[in-house]
C-alpha cells in the first residue's frame, strides 16, 4: 500500500490547494479529508459548493460519485458482514478505490491477521491522504493556481497502475475495454451517471464473456 500512498500525493495536494482557491478555510479543507476521505467526492463537492449548487443537488451528486462503493460493499459482503461492527465500520470507512483494488486477494479479510493487515494498509493510506491534503492547503495559501499543472494526470496514472496488472484473462480484458468504450460514449453525450453506467456495462460484458467461455 505504501507505493499507492505516495502515488496519491499529487491528488491530495491538488485537492488541498483547490479547496483554498475555492474559498474554503484551511480547517474546512482538512475536514473534508478527515471525515469524507474520498478524493473524487471531495473534488466534486468543492467544485459544486463554489458554484453555489443547491444543497439537494449537491447531495445527489455526492451519492452518484460515491455509488461505486455499493459495488465494493457487495463484493466484500461475504467476507466482512460476519465480522464485528467495529471491523465493519472501520474498514468500511477506509474502503477507498485503492484499498479495494489492493484487497482483491482470494484470502483478503479471511483471518484476524488479514483484517489487521487491511487496517494497516487502509489506515496508513488515510494518514498519507491527510498529510498530502495539508501540504496542498499550505501550497494553496502560498502559491497561485495549482490546478493547471496537470496534477490530475497522476490520478489517472494511479488507476492505470491498479487496473492493468489485473488484466490477466480474456473476460477481464473485455470488461476493461467495454467500460472504457462506454465511458467515452457517455462522456460524448454528457450523461451524468456515466461512471456507474460504464462500470455496470463493463462488468456485464466481462461476466458474459466468462459465461461464454466456460
Amino acid at each position, binding site marked *: 500500500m505504501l507505493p499507492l500512498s505516495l502515488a496519491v500525493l499529487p491528488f491530495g495536494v491538488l485537492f488541498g490547494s483547490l479547496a483554498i482557491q475555492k474559498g474554503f478555510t484551511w480547517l474546512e479543507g482538512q475536514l473534508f479529508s478527515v471525515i469524507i476521505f474520498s478524493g473524487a467526492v471531495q473534488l466534486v463537492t468543492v467544485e459544486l459548493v463554489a458554484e453555489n449548487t443547491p444543497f439537494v443537488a449537491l447531495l445527489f451528486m455526492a451519492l452518484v460519485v460515491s455509488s461505486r462503493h455499493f459495488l465494493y460493499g457487495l463484493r466484500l459482503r461475504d467476507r466482512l458482514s460476519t465480522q464485528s461492527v467495529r471491523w465493519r465500520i472501520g474498514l468500511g470507512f477506509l474502503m477507498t478505490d485503492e484499498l479495494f483494488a489492493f484487497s482483491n486477494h482470494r484470502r483478503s479479510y479471511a483471518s484476524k491477521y488479514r483484517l489487521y493487515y487491511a487496517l494497516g494498509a487502509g489506515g496508513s493510506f488515510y494518514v498519507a491522504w491527510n498529510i498530502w491534503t495539508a501540504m496542498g492547503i499550505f501550497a494553496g495559501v502560498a502559491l497561485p493556481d495549482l490546478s493547471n499543472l496537470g496534477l490530475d494526470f497522476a490520478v489517472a496514472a494511479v488507476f492505470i497502475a491498479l487496473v492493468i496488472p489485473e488484466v490477466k484473462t480474456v473476460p477481464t480484458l473485455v470488461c476493461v475495454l467495454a467500460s472504457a468504450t462506454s*465511458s467515452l460514449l457517455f462522456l460524448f453525450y454528457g450523461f451524468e451517471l456515466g461512471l456507474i453506467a460504464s462500470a455496470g456495462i463493463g462488468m456485464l460484458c466481462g461476466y458474459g464473456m466468462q459465461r461464454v467461455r466456460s
Partner: protein
Amino acid sequence: MSPTLITILSVAFITFMTRYLFLEEKLPLRLGPNISQLLSFSGPAVLTAIFIPILFFNNNSIDISISNAYLWGGVGAIAAAYKTKNVYWTIACGGILFIGVGIYF
C-alpha cells in the same frame, strides 16, 4: 453550525453509507454465485470508468488530438504498467511522457 460545515458532514455521511450499507449483516440480502462472479469485475470496471475521462476530457470537451498530453501520458503509463506491473514505474513513465508532450506543444 455554518452551512459549509453542514455540507461537509452531510457528504461525509452519504459517502460512509455507500461504503457501509452492504457490509451490514442485518441487511436481508444473499448473493448467489452468479452475482458474485459479476461483482468480481467491479474493480477493473470502475477504475477504468474513472481514468478514461481524465485522459480524454480536457477543457470541457473530448480531445483526441496528438497535442493531448494526457493521452500520451496514458499510453505511456499503460505500457509501463503492462511491462513492469509496478506503481512507481507506471507513474514515472506516464508522467515523463505527459510533461514532455505538454512542453513540446
